[in-house]
């Protein structure tokens, strides 16, 4: 039941998952964002999703693995097991799987035009959403959206609007993988990155912070540390880093995240006691 509300969209962050270049998980990201360790970039390593049946697991590509790994970490961080049911999900990504897109376009430019059926169904933007629901045997609503470089902010808006409407937790998974050449030259990315937030309208023991969002027109916040700023500016899902930094430091404050060309998302963060 949805009623018109005038309150600011918001929720508690109950669980976090992060995976990126040289960032193995949320504790590793938090240590980096708190300045407790130097940044040492390394290729992003996403494990094959153990929750999927073997046949499905073999069909997953790097993008699906990245999204599922971050989402599963957020569940575990929130103290939910992977058997948790009826958890709505929002998948936010600038584009689908770049390697699959390259393979399909290459095949279509060749005389034979042979496309693998599995590659084709894995090319949909909601592939990670589909595999997530299969892996978790969860029939809850799931969406997959894009707002180019602002996909994280668009996903956060949708996830907060959903949890506000349903009164139930929503898992946001933002993720991006880079393209192979020649698409990489047209859409360069600084590697692969995923950030997942389990957002709960209700407060709970162990919640990290409360978020409230509003639209803004000010410039987005860069990060003062050059390597982290390169990551933030270089991968759409890493546009979440200013928010993750406030959460990791248990600071109150406002993170201004990139959204659309003329809009930013202002996220007010208050740490939970």
């Amino acid at each position, binding site marked *: *039941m*949805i*009623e*018109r*509300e*005038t*309150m600011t*969209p918001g929720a508690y962050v109950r669980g976090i998952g992060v995976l990126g270049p040289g960032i193995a998980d949320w504790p590793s990201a938090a240590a980096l964002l708190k300045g407790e360790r130097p940044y040492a970039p390394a290729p992003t390593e996403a494990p094959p999703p153990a929750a999927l049946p073997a046949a499905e697991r073999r069909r997953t590509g790097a993008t699906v693995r990245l999204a599922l790994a971050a989402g599963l970490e957020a569940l575990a961080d929130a103290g939910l097991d992977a058997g948790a049911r009826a958890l709505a999900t929002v998948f936010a990504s*600038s*584009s*689908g799987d770049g390697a699959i*897109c390259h393979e*399909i*376009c290459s095949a*279509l*430019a060749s005389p034979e*035009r042979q*496309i*693998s*059926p599995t590659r*084709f*169904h894995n090319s*949909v*933007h*909601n*592939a990670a*959403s*589909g*595999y997530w*629901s*299969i892996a978790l*045997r*969860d*029939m*809850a*609503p*799931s*969406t*997959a*959206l*894009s*707002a*180019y470089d602002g*996909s994280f902010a*668009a996903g956060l*808006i949708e996830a*907060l*609007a959903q949890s*506000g*409407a349903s009164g139930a937790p929503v898992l946001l998974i933002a993720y991006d993988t880079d393209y192979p*050449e*020649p*698409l990489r*030259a*047209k*859409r360069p990315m600084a590697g692969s990155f995923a950030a997942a937030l389990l957002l709960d309208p209700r407060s709970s023991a162990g919640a990290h912070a409360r978020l409230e969002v509003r*639209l803004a027109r000010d410039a987005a916040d860069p990060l003062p540390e050059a390597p982290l700023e390169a990551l933030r500016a270089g991968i759409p899902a890493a546009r979440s880093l200013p928010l993750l930094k406030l959460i990791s430091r248990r600071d109150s404050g406002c993170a201004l995240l990139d*959204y*659309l060309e003329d*809009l930013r998302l202002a996220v007010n963060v208050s740490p939970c006691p």
Partner: protein
Amino acid sequence: MKPLALTHYTATSAIGRGLGETLAALRAGRGGLAPCTFETAVLETCIGEVPGLDAVRVPAPLARFDCRNHRLALLALEQDGFGEAVRRCAARLGPARIGVLLGTSTSGMLETELAYRHRAPDGALPASFDYAATHNPYALGDFVRRALALEGPAAVISTACSSSAKVFAAAVRLMAAGLIDAAVVGGVDSLCLTTLYGFSALQLVARGPCRPFDLARDGISIGEGAAFALLERPGPDTGPGTITLTGFGESSDAYHMSSPHPDGLGAQAAMRQALACAGLEPGQIEYINLHGTGTPSNDSAEARAVAALFGAAVPVSSTKGATGHTLGAAGALEAVICALALRHGLLPGGLNTTAVDPGLELAYLTGNRAAPVTRVLSNSFGFGGSNCSLVLERRTEEPAHD
């Protein structure tokens, strides 16, 4: 939910540009499917092509967005005074208070396919290829938001063939969250080789025009289309006859990436939620516009799901025999067809279906039926097991004021 009014809406597909041509084609039982001669495709299948897209000119300030998908979007926005209606709404509410939520499955993919054919000897794509303005899924949202001079929140939902049904749900939520006061929702998907060859590789494409719910159905006919609606809270101008969105339901099959659950369990969940959201019992739905793709597995799973909830009496049909399967545009296109059904009392019969599969126990319409309906349901299901159902109603009395 509190109903939202579709104060303006429009659709363009293989059966016509705008509501007038679409309604005339539905009334005449005229389909838009023809043997595939699209681009360089060599496939024995029929497609639902929108004629004249090559002649559409994207205005100079938006030149970098020029591609088949955005020409189709622009052509559709120009029908039925839709763009003008949005501009009037923006003048009233403020352009920052109107959201843009659109669905597509392949966005401007055709441009990328062509660019790959014109790679330089070193493999580089042509300089003219503009990734952000054509290929990226959000290119559609960016283009439409600019074309309508809107300044509110925007996103493109891309969940395969449920995409532009789910945008209605997303718009309801953004309005409930207080972020917007109105939304342009819709879907645009255009022909490209990826879907033509991809669905062929999956052996899901019909040889002739698709025959949803026919005993001899053998797959889909891919179509292209664009449909838009302006969603607003009901006000003094939305009296009897206004078409309203009163419910939506979303679910996941959690079963397989490209095959539906055989009993349509996910579809049932989406339909049940849509009814609950609208506060209706199954018996109050007077027509269902089926997803009805024409593949053996979709139609049998959907038939079981519909029968489990509604029984066998409610009139149902798929309009994909007329328009083809417009993929990411299908949800919005069929929502607009439902609006026409409500407004004109026309339940459109499904085309090309001559012998309804007796194993599918539904009242499938093979011819038009005149009936003054007030409550209808539209189904959209996609790869990845993504399901969405919408309930649309026609107001029959003065709305109660809040």
